[in-house]
């Protein structure tokens, strides 16, 4: 029984980690290549979820809704880039924090104005609904498995894009030394724009994928943004590989911590004490992990070499 629970929670942790990776991948590139702190990345995830909800309701099909939501998220990211972000690349981090904080405020209320404050529900596509029996006595929702598969596929695609294409090479070069890349005749502004739009689309994709299992509501991106920051800082800013491993680590630690911290503490503490401390410690685990990583490796686990 307990082993089954452990397996289920591990899968849940993997699924959560995959979603975190989709968000963190864009964030770490924008951060690494442009040295730009984008607090508004979380609301782009939220906007992606809203686009998915709206288009799925409009077309009546999840696949069609997703197919429309992705370009919409991309277009929205590019719009933000042109209107606001590109004017902030040369500024210091404080100006970027101020402006992107303003965008969070605007969009969190903006979606409320357009879609209302009540959470939107997106039905799980019929083809992916229900559960399958992974082993005897272990039922797991198909849709969550689909998220894991989709995330891994995107991760693989990203790996190929970043490591085996010319654009990816420029992105890697930009993360190492943007000024030098620019001096070698690459239109760095256009590169920034592409990276930015792509990151926004990935965040939007993550939002669209979780729309059927979470409620789509204003402010849904605020907390996941912080988790994505934790991921990219642990992984090392600018490193896709680091983001991938750190996202899985954070997803697993957070999910398993929340369900098993009390049980583990019960080995050394009395039951009521253990459950209390367990509940207190579980949500703090990932931040403790992050502080510990930064204490020993001040630039994360997989720093981009300069």
């Amino acid at each position, binding site marked *: 029984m307990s082993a089954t629970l452990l397996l289920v929670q591990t899968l849940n942790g993997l699924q959560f980690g995959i979603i975190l990776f989709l968000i963190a991948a864009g964030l770490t590139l924008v951060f690494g290549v442009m040295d730009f702190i984008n607090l508004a990345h979380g609301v782009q995830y939220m906007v992606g979820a809203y686009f998915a909800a709206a288009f799925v309701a409009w077309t009546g099909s999840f696949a069609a809704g997703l197919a429309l939501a992705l370009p919409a998220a991309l277009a929205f990211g590019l719009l933000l880039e042109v209107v606001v972000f590109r004017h902030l690349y040369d500024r210091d981090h*404080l100006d970027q*924090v*101020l402006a992107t*904080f303003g965008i969070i405020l605007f969009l969190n*209320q903006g979606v409320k104005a357009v879609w209302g404050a009540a959470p939107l529900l997106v039905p799980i596509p019929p083809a992916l609904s229900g559960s399958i029996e992974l082993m005897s006595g272990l039922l797991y929702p198909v849709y969550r498995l689909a998220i894991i598969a989709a995330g891994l596929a995107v991760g693989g695609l990203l790996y190929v894009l970043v490591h085996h294409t010319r654009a990816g090479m420029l992105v890697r070069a930009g993360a190492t030394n943007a000024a030098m890349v620019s001096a070698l005749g690459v239109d760095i502004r256009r590169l920034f724009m592409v990276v930015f739009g792509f990151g926004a689309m990935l965040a939007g994709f993550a939002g669209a994928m979780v729309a059927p299992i979470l409620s789509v509501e204003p402010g849904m991106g*605020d907390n996941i943004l912080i988790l994505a920051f934790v991921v990219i800082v642990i992984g090392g800013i600018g490193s896709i590989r680091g983001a991938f491993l750190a996202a899985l680590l954070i997803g697993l630690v957070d999910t398993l911590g929340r369900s098993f911290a009390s049980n583990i503490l019960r080995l050394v503490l009395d039951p009521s004490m253990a459950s209390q401390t367990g509940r207190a410690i579980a949500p703090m685990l990932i*931040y403790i992990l992050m502080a510990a990583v*930064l204490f020993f490796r001040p630039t994360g686990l997989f720093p981009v070499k300069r």
Partner: protein
Amino acid sequence: MTGLPAEAAQTAVAPPARWRGCILPLVLFGLFAVAPAFARHGGEGYILALALRVMILGIAAMSLDLILGYGALISFGHAAFLGIGAYAVGILMSHGVGDAFGQLAAALAASALFALVTGAISLRTKGVYFIMITLAFGQMLYFLATSLAAYGGDDGMTLPRKSLVLGTRILGEGHTFYYVVLACLVGAYLLCRAIVASRFGRVLRGTRENPVRMQAIGFNPLAYQLAAYVIAGALCGLAGFLLANQTEFVSPAFMTWQRSGELIVMVILGGLGSLHGAIIGAAAFVILEEVLSRITELWKMIFGPMLVLVALFARGGILGFFRGLRRG
């Protein structure tokens, strides 16, 4: 956007500028001092509550300005200290310790200690990593507060009354609390001014400009930054102590990361690295929030773009804007 232009402006103008530097803070504190007299003509409770909020958040923002404006340490977890100060009041009161001095001592000690420990770890990192690790410590404390079931957990707790002074409820009477907060604000301002003007403050500014050079001429930048971080944390703990007493309520919402972001916004909005700019920023933030939320429920859709415009065009915040006007 370091504080350099501000100082350059101050030295560029002849001696009267020394006076001019004092006028704005004096006017500011004067306004706070006479506010109760004016408020008597109507809407007293409302106006005073607003002014109190401005002053308390002003202390918090000013403490952040000390490390942000003078030390270039972008702390994204400053609201944690607000929470520590507030919870010192709430936790002690729920155990029957209602005395203001005891609570204040606990608030200052706890926030200074938290600043010392987290600062010693955070300051090992630089730049973006520093921003993120301070954020992590803030989040840690936030989640700790939400899990404190004995002290209200997620919902927070309502305090039975304001803190007692020598066993009396004097803080709850008349305008006493208002003037106590004003005295704290002025005291905190003078303290910060003195710190900034001292040798310590000059070394701190030196580390902001170039830590390596400071090290080369024999200073240990880390020690100075850590000391500034601890002072700022304790001052913000004071603001938390006052905030709990004003609202007679304590909750984890005091230390969300959004609140830390708001404190940064206040400092930048007012003008980085000028101390009274942080108070002006707090006032602008609180008043804009009040005014706009009366116009529309969706006031953040106006406020958000305003922040973007400030970031894009009004470098140096409100103070910088006026300085620009004077120079023509």
